[in-house]
């Protein structure tokens, strides 16, 4: 919005393979990520245009997926629309709501704020990756028992946030739980039930269950 009348040329300008972010309007999501990209790497690479693709190998839920992606594609877009892994949801596409939270090397991250290329070489875990075959993980089980969801759309992200928290802090305090899920919006307002689910999952795990 607000940039709808730009010249088409500005869209099709060349971009560098690694430093593709700078100098080109590729949408709000990608622009915000630009701060993550080291400026010193910008000059040294060849130019490619937005329609061109690059081969990338993503390690998602311990499986390797090799595919061609445009450099501007987010990890979220690739996971949902290219790989059909739909547990990861899109709520805003710009790092506001946390519906797309996945674990990247055990840390909860917004998949909409991570480019697919950035995710290469890292271990990515989605909601589906918490399951043992068809069996739900402890956090998922706890969410069912405490009814820690309503429409269920923010829920995969909430579960990943709790999973990431419990991997780091197995027995979190109520305050740590609140902070741990504070990056995940729930418009249905299931927060208080989510707190209970996180506590239950922590208890269940300390009783001997792993994830």
């Amino acid at each position, binding site marked *: 919005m607000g940039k709808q009348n730009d010249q088409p040329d500005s869209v099709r300008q060349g971009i560098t393979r690694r430093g593709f972010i700078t100098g080109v309007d590729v949408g709000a999501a990608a622009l915000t990520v630009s701060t993550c990209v080291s400026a010193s790497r910008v000059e040294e690479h060849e130019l490619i245009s*937005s329609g061109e693709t690059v081969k990338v190998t993503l390690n998602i839920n311990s499986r390797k997926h090799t595919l061609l992606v445009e450099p501007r594609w987010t990890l979220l877009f690739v996971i949902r629309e290219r790989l059909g892994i739909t547990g990861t*949801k899109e709520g805003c596409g*710009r790092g506001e709501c946390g519906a797309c939270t996945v674990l990247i090397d055990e840390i909860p991250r917004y998949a909409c704020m991570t480019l697919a290329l950035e995710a290469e070489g890292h271990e990515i875990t989605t909601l589906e990756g918490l*399951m043992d075959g068809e069996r739900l993980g402890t956090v998922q089980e706890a969410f069912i*028992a405490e009814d820690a969801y309503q429409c269920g759309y923010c829920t995969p992200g909430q579960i990943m946030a709790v999973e990431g928290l419990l991997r780091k802090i197995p027995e979190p305090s109520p305050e740590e739980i609140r902070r741990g899920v504070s990056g995940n919006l729930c*418009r249905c307002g299931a*927060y208080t039930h989510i707190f209970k689910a996180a506590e239950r999952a922590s208890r269940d795990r300390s009783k001997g269950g792993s994830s």
Partner: protein
Amino acid sequence: MEGKKDIYYLHGLAVPETPAAGNAPEPWKETRVVGTRQPRVDGYERLSGSAIYPSDVVLPGMLYGAVLRCPHPHAEIEDIDTSAAEKIPGVRAVLTGRSPDAEVLWREDQDYQTLLFNRICRFEGEAVAAVAADTPYIASDALRAIRVEYKVLPFTVNERRALEPDAPKVHSHGNRASVTHYARGDVFKGLEQADVVHEESYRTQCEIHTPMELHGCAARWEGDSLTIWESTQGVYAVQEKAARALGMPLSRVRVIGHYMGGGFGSKLKPGKYTIIAALLARMTARPVKLFLTREETYLVTGNRPPVDMRLKAGVKKDGTLTALDFSCVGTGGAFPSGGTALVDWLIRDLYTCPNVRTESTDVFIHAGPARPFRAPGHPQGSWALEQMMDALAEKTGLDPVEIRLKNIPLYSQAREGNPPYTTTGLKECIVRGAREFDWKRARAQAEKTRNHTIRRGVGMACALWFVGGGRPPSTIVLKLFSDGSANLNMGASDIGTGTKTVMAMVVAEELRISPHMIQIENADTGTTQFATPSGGSKTVPTEAPAVRDAALQVKRQLLEMAAKDLEAPVSELKFDIDAIFSKTDSGKRIKLTDLTDLKKGGVVVGIGRRGPNPEHKVVNPFVAQFCEVQVNMKTGEVGILRFLSANESGRVMDRLTFDGQVAGGITMGIGLAMTEIRVLDERATGKMLNRNWHDYKLPTALDVPPVIVSAPVEMPDDEANTTGAKGLGEPVTIPTAGAVANAIHHATGIRMTESPMDPTRLLARLVQATKEG
């Protein structure tokens, strides 16, 4: 729905005949399954990622649609040049008002018809053009490549100025959308009779629904048939509107919405996006998925209208209300959309008052049209009325609980003929809530912090919801298989409230099988029965009686089958877990799975229908809420420490999901109270300045109290329907904001009459009070 109000868009919807009141079954005396804490029957699907929400749909060859939107609140399109966009590789279709495919009429409202793409854009975000492309990225490239020449026109985005003579007009006939009046008794006399008269202005700000799943759909054509996977509260409502816009028979428009990620009223009807997706799919002969961006949803998918209210009330020394004089000005945006609908309802009907007058003025402004938002009108009116009751209590020296108990109505005063309520738990909600909250002690404790920097306050508020009883039509098909498992077929959507689980519990209650043995097919116009959209807190009281009826039809047939096998009259037989036996002859017992006719037929089918509501009676849910806050007098920060909600919603069907609704409604009410406001740039551009979740703040995990107590006042409402259940989802959010405002007043002595009560606004008032001190 009351009179002409059509907030749930039921007007014009095909509504099948309601069956005559038949022999209604006896109410449940005791229940085994209903009323327990039952985890959701679709919990696994929702939590494993295997539930496919409409936005999850990926179809072979699917393209992505996107809509170009007017960046100005008021503009005329002079020219559109799409040639550059069309040349971008991967762009498959471009649609504008000039495209022959776009010659589609679009109904904003039952009385207001426009085109899909209008030359005059009356609000920021109005659709101007659309594209379909291989990826959403290319679609977005294409939108930026479309050149539009706008003639920017003067705008009005402040509803308080919309009626000034020089205000730019939204429509040629002016900016007055409607003025409605209501009166009973004589307000002037009532005010004369009062010992205390108090007058105050109030305002609630505009809220945006922002459900987590974006608005949109995937559309696919197979020859003349169209399938739409839409994130919606009502598949039949989408079918009706899409078929009408596209000039198609209903039978060829199939709408599927098995799961959906929240709506809160904003997904009761389809959007232009639905039609645009279908047109793009037809132009390209490929499936098209079109989901809006989050920013677009702030502009074009509805809101809870802002409203300015004025209330003057008279009360006797003993707390008896003598008069309520209310007026309000609000706006539903650029098209008729009920900007002030129901804002005055609680003033009219919540408390006993012989003399009431209300006037509601709805005006047009150059902003996106409203859509129903969880209990339309009610939280706004409640904000004024409940703060007024609190102020009257203070002025008369009564306790806030006491003054409300003085004015409990037993019938609906605002309806013609003053029909009684089937049940009214208002008094019980107040009494039980106050007791469980430990109201008196909490008030006294809080008052001990009067000299502290961090002060505590305790407040309460009450409400009713003007519908919530459900109503016909609903048709349910229940199939019992030969192994004793069942398939329940229902058109209604489960919007996250646990509808499917409650229905499985009703079947389980009657047929004595496990809720998890019941497979539910729902929300698909191709395969499930007609249903009105899930909204108005009517889904459980509408669908559950029809489900019970279907289960009873199945039961009747099973008993007849058993009577044949056991050679005993039906009247002698009784249902047990998975078997039927004779009450008089213990040797006569047969397992369901051994019934000869069930084995022969393979299935037993029961068709259930929703019977009519009781005549000349009103079915409304009631609620009282209590909360405790702490206020930092130096920063204006408010912490909400605890909340309790006592809801009378008839029978509690699933205690687990019931409590979830309570927590959710309060959380949303905290948003209205504390954080949510749409900011329009009145001076320079007329644009919305905070169309994202960073700048438009929802309550997060850090903004809700750690514990929200649900204390249901269970009064099975046997007259309301055959399950005794009333609605819950809306009543529970109505009094929340007012309760918080009253608690803040208790803590600080400051009356915050305008929402949201964020630290900046509260601090300004605290500083002012100190100065005036």
